[in-house]
């Protein structure tokens, strides 16, 4: 497990001074990670400029041409696609446009949820690792609980409960972010705690204390910067995990609700129409896979570049 690895080696290793140049030199060696950056950039650009690229409103039904079955993509049947590059879904909405707007939702949601998870996890992990004692004990028991229940079923139950409570039929973006963030911080907390446990015994921490720094300053200015590398790696990998997790939620109908497009809910109806409209099942999934694959490659590259001793 990565948690046990020494964290300070970025400084201890062959590079006496760990600079941005060192980082890029190491990162570039990981070719898949560089490819991941390219793919992710394409996805991000698509998400940001969705309006300009798509040209068609993702929620509008093409009433002029659609009359029942989904329209095929242009490369399948160029006379029947009526300008819908990747065809339409089963109710006649442009697939390409929905994919672009779906990227916005899926990526923003995952990044926000991970930011929240990292904030909670880092704070609690730092407190537990630095102070130890009862704080640490309680935190470890709570994380034990969270890590003993598979996150997906628990997430489904919670979204079901919150959705029913809020009287609206569906969950908003904010609620989903909140629930995923609250459920997924324990892994981060454990990681940060483990690093704090080893780092707090180091001489430089003792030195910082000896010259009269307060606890807060030691935690945030002296220890935390030295444990940023594993947190960044974990955060990157978790973005991919949350994208998948959230797409499952949408797919099962408990997450982002149509007509708002997300990669997960675009797949929700595709199973019933698998035979008639394979494209509606293939493309959203390919987008998810390409994005998560890219992020996982980047995460691996970051791990190699930031700290060769991490596993």
């Amino acid at each position, binding site marked *: 497990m990565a948690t046990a690895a020494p964290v300070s080696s970025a400084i201890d290793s062959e590079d006496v001074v760990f600079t941005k140049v060192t980082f890029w030199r190491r990162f570039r060696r990981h070719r898949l990670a560089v490819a991941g950056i390219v793919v992710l950039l394409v996805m991000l650009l698509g998400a940001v400029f969705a309006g300009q690229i798509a040209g068609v409103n993702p929620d509008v039904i093409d009433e002029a041409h659609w009359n029942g079955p989904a329209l095929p993509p242009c490369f399948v049947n160029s006379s029947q696609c009526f300008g819908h590059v990747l065809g339409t879904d089963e109710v006649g909405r442009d697939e390409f446009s929905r994919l672009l707007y779906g990227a916005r939702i899926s990526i923003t949601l995952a990044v926000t949820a991970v930011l929240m998870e990292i904030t909670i996890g880092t704070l609690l992990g730092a407190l537990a690792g630095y102070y130890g004692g009862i704080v640490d004990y309680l935190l470890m028991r709570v994380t034990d609980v969270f890590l003993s*229940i598979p996150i997906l079923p628990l997430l*489904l139950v919670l979204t079901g409960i919150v959705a029913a409570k809020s009287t609206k039929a569906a969950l908003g973006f904010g609620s989903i972010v909140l629930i995923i963030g609250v459920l997924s911080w324990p892994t981060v907390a454990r990681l940060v705690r483990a690093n704090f446990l080893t780092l707090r015994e180091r001489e430089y921490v003792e030195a910082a204390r000896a010259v009269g720094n307060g606890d807060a300053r030691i935690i945030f200015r002296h220890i935390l910067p030295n444990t940023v590398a594993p947190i960044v790696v974990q955060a990157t990998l978790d973005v991919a995990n949350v994208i998948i997790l959230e*797409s499952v939620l949408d797919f099962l109908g408990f997450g982002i609700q149509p007509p708002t497009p997300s990669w997960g809910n675009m797949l929700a109806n595709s199973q019933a129409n698998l*035979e008639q409209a394979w494209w509606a099942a293939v493309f959203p999934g390919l987008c998810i896979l390409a994005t998560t*694959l890219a992020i996982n490659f980047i995460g691996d590259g970051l791990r190699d570049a930031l700290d060769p001793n991490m596993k």
Partner: protein
Amino acid sequence: MFNYVVRRSLQAIPLLILISFILFVIVNNAPGGPLGPYLQNPHITQADIERLSRNLGVTPPPGVPPPVWFVVRYFRWLGHVLTGDFGWSTSNAEPVLDAILQRLPATLLLMGVSFVVALGIGLAAGIFSAVLPYSIWDYIVTVFAFFGQSMPVFWLGLMLQLGFAVNGIPVGFGYRIGGLPSAGMSTLETFNLGDRIDHLILPVITLAFLSLALYSRFTRSSMLEVMGADYMRTAAAKGLPFRTILLKHGLKNALIPVVTIVAISLPSLIAGAVVTEYIFAWPGMGRLFINALQQSDMALLMGYLCLVAVLVVFSNLLADICYAWLDPRVKYD
């Protein structure tokens, strides 16, 4: 060793109590509380609800503050659970335990077969990779592992259905491979092994994919570490055949950390089973869970989560004990 086992087992008890208490809090915060499912029934009046609430002990008796009563109710509930009474499943009209036990064999079959397939292929691929590190094969296994890590399980299921069940893959001369069943556990009324295997193929590939990637990656890194150990060099210097060195000296030691990973991956296998069963209409616990979710059958959701938590806690316990048993260097205290 015996003390270690006893102490670790005793530690699991407060953990399970804490888990069940948190789940109890969650379920009691569901809309309408524990009586939620009845609120949706148009034949049940407000008076009925109040009567049920009193009779079932949801309303605190006069003079008892609600938080105290909540704790009392929790312990009552715990008492029932310990005697095997998980309450009444409104979506199945039968006791929760019966509903779950009825579907358990199907889930265990799916998870068991997937697990064996994933572990078998994962170990083989991992060892293979470690023996020929940085070769083209190692590269393929590594990239494949990344795919496993990044693949949305439900989409893989859909694609397998599309490829092998719905259309079939054209192999030329007008032939197609495929025609596998895409839903359910059997076509025939009576049990038939070939039929059962046909139905298992696609769900098992779907479910095994994720764990397979994980196992192969960990076996590879663990095996690579072991390959550099002094005792491996000693074994080679003694003139032992490569096979013996690899399997008896290498693999045995390399498997120790893999045991932990296998136990840690159980929650993801369970979560994966929920999705896989949904996609392939597999009549197991996962499908039961989704149905209960759609009909807000809180008693069943609670029972399912409790059962899963017990499974996970015990598998972690078992992994720790195996670890201590396999690796004499682990200190018990």
